[in-house]
């Protein structure tokens, strides 16, 4: 056995440049695979963080008619109680009751149409992490003369306002009358989605309910669940529990994000398959060439009584050693690459424009340790499979004929 591996090992280095070439191909293949996987994961994570974690949440509940007509009269009856009921469930982390109305926001020289979200600041902080997104000013801590509003950076730029400046919100009350009220910008939040920043402002639900003339109106409940992968299951459960509410999960709410992640995942799998196939065929070709060059030698081995199974394992061992060298070296280099790029970030070409659509312009690839081993194991398995055909060719040699060949 030891000698068998020794022979395999030395055979690999008989044609040094050929082996180095195929080992390099394995290393580059692995790095390519790891790179695309890590970028995909980074993109997915970043989009998920931005869109789902910070904006949409996993599941939302509304009055069925609110979706077509986002007006206060289509609210969820007993919304505050439902939200606190939901928060107590084991499969739900937190549920934030909101009062959402459309309105106008105006500074002294500009105005803009916005969605006004009346929230419970403490619950909202746990739901969308809004508090952590505030980059200037503070988050509903001041008890000033004017009620607080938290607006997006992009909206602040547009309105020429800043933390501390005064803005006027105009909206319809329950009777359909237009009412205006002054607010003080307490904080500015930042997201990678500029359009969300421009469109959405947050105020205390109690302030909003006071303006529209009703108490405790809840038009939207945003739900964060314990296990994000279970979003469909939990949404179904909630639909059953609250038949009067329209329950939608994030894939319903953000179909384009859902499909882009799906397509991305699909594309990644194909990229990996193509890389692994290409490397395997290269390996197959290399080993096959070395078999054809060694017909006489293999014939002699079979003639003197080396069993076909041993010759077979010798060739499989050769391939496996090559794959292992390439695999291990490739893993270390991929790991180094991800560590490096994870720190410096990978700028997306033309990335500044992407920010407006909710995409980050720089991605920070990272990868779970398990993935490295998964891809390496798959590669080694394919390499061993690639050796089966050449090895089979070798053991089908008839020793009497093989030793005759010149």
């Amino acid at each position, binding site marked *: 056995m030891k*000698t068998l591996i020794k022979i395999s090992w030395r055979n690999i280095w*008989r044609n040094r440049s050929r082996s180095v070439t195929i080992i390099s191909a394995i290393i580059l293949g692995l790095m390519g695979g790891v790179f695309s996987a890590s970028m995909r994961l980074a993109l997915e994570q970043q989009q998920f963080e931005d869109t789902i974690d910070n904006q949409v949440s996993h599941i939302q509940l509304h009055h069925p008619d609110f979706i077509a007509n986002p007006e206060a009269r289509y609210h969820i009856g007993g919304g505050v109680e439902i939200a606190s009921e939901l928060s107590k469930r084991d499969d739900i982390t937190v549920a934030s009751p909101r009062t959402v109305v459309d309105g106008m926001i105006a500074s002294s020289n500009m105005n803009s149409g916005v969605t006004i979200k009346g929230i419970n600041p403490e619950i909202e902080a746990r739901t969308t992490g809004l508090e952590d997104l505030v980059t200037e000013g503070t988050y509903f801590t001041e008890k000033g003369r004017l009620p607080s509003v938290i607006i997006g950076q992009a909206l602040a730029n547009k309105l020429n306002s800043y933390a501390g400046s005064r803005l006027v919100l105009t909206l319809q009350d329950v009777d359909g009358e237009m009412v205006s009220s002054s607010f003080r910008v307490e904080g500015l939040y930042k997201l990678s989605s500029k359009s969300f920043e421009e469109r959405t402002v947050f105020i205390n639900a109690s302030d909003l309910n006071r303006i529209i003339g009703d108490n405790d109106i809840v038009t939207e409940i945003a739900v964060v669940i314990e296990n994000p992968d279970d979003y469909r299951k939990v949404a179904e459960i909630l639909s059953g529990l609250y038949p009067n509410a329209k329950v939608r999960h994030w894939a319903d709410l953000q179909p384009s994000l859902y499909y882009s992640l799906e397509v991305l995942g699909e594309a990644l799998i194909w990229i990996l398959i193509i890389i692994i196939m290409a490397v395997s065929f290269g390996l197959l070709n290399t080993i096959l060439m070395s078999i054809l060059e060694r017909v*006489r030698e293999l014939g002699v081995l079979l003639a003197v*009584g080396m069993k076909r199974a041993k010759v077979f394992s010798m060739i499989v061992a050769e391939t496996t050693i090559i794959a292992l060298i390439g695999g291990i070296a490739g893993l270390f280099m991929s790991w180094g690459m991800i560590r490096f790029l994870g720190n410096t970030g990978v700028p997306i070409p033309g990335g500044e424009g992407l920010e407006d659509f909710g995409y980050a312009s720089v991605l920070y690839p990272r990868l779970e340790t398990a993935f490295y081993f998964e891809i390496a194991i798959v590669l080694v398995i394919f390499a061993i499979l690639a050796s089966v055909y050449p090895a089979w060719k070798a053991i089908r040699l008839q*020793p009497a004929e093989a030793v005759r060949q010149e």
Partner: protein
Amino acid sequence: MKTVIKTTNLSKVYSGTAVPVHALKNVNLEFKQGEFTAIVGPSGSGKTTFLNVIGGLDKPTGGHVVIDGVDIATMKESQLFDFRLRHIGFVFQAYNLIPVLTAVENVSFIMLLQNRPKAEMEQRAKEMLEQVGLADKLDVRPGKLSGGQQQRVAVARALASRPDFVLADEPTANLDTESAFNLLDIMARLNREENITLIFSTHDQRVIERARRVITLVDGAVASDEYFDRETSGEENGQTGQVMTATL
């Protein structure tokens, strides 16, 4: 003297070709323990075919090969592998050695496949390389050896495992005269000292006279089978031997 190999009505027809080739025709031969035999004949006369068939590398299309009382035609493929490994030593015309192994590793190789103890294996391999005059080349790989030296390593390997007999197909064909004589002398000496039955083929008149028995094949049939008494076999040139028997 014990009979090691016995063939009866041995024939081999290659039928893969346009016209079937009768490479062996009713060959009846017996080889006894310790014999040193040359199979001679022009190219295409069936020497290689004969050695392949008695060596279990190829199946005859007619007749029998009985080795130590066992008809090898009845053996399964896997049994033949084992039989070759345990009972037969092979030397081919060229490319005998594993290029990536040193001389001593090559000589040990058959014993290794036989699972012999490591210490015994190494000692025997060194001893055999000394016997063939390569004591100073133990750790040299075949690529760094001359053609004659490579064939001597091959002979050392074939004999190291103490097989019942050794088959050498044109072992000197690629060698210059001096190396060819040298190799044959070594084979002859090992044949005497180790009492190993040795059969080699050649179409080279120069080396035929080293053998004590010369079988001539013509068109796949035995044309003559002669015994010579060579007391000083191998140590000098020229046909000094005297014909003891001649059969036809």
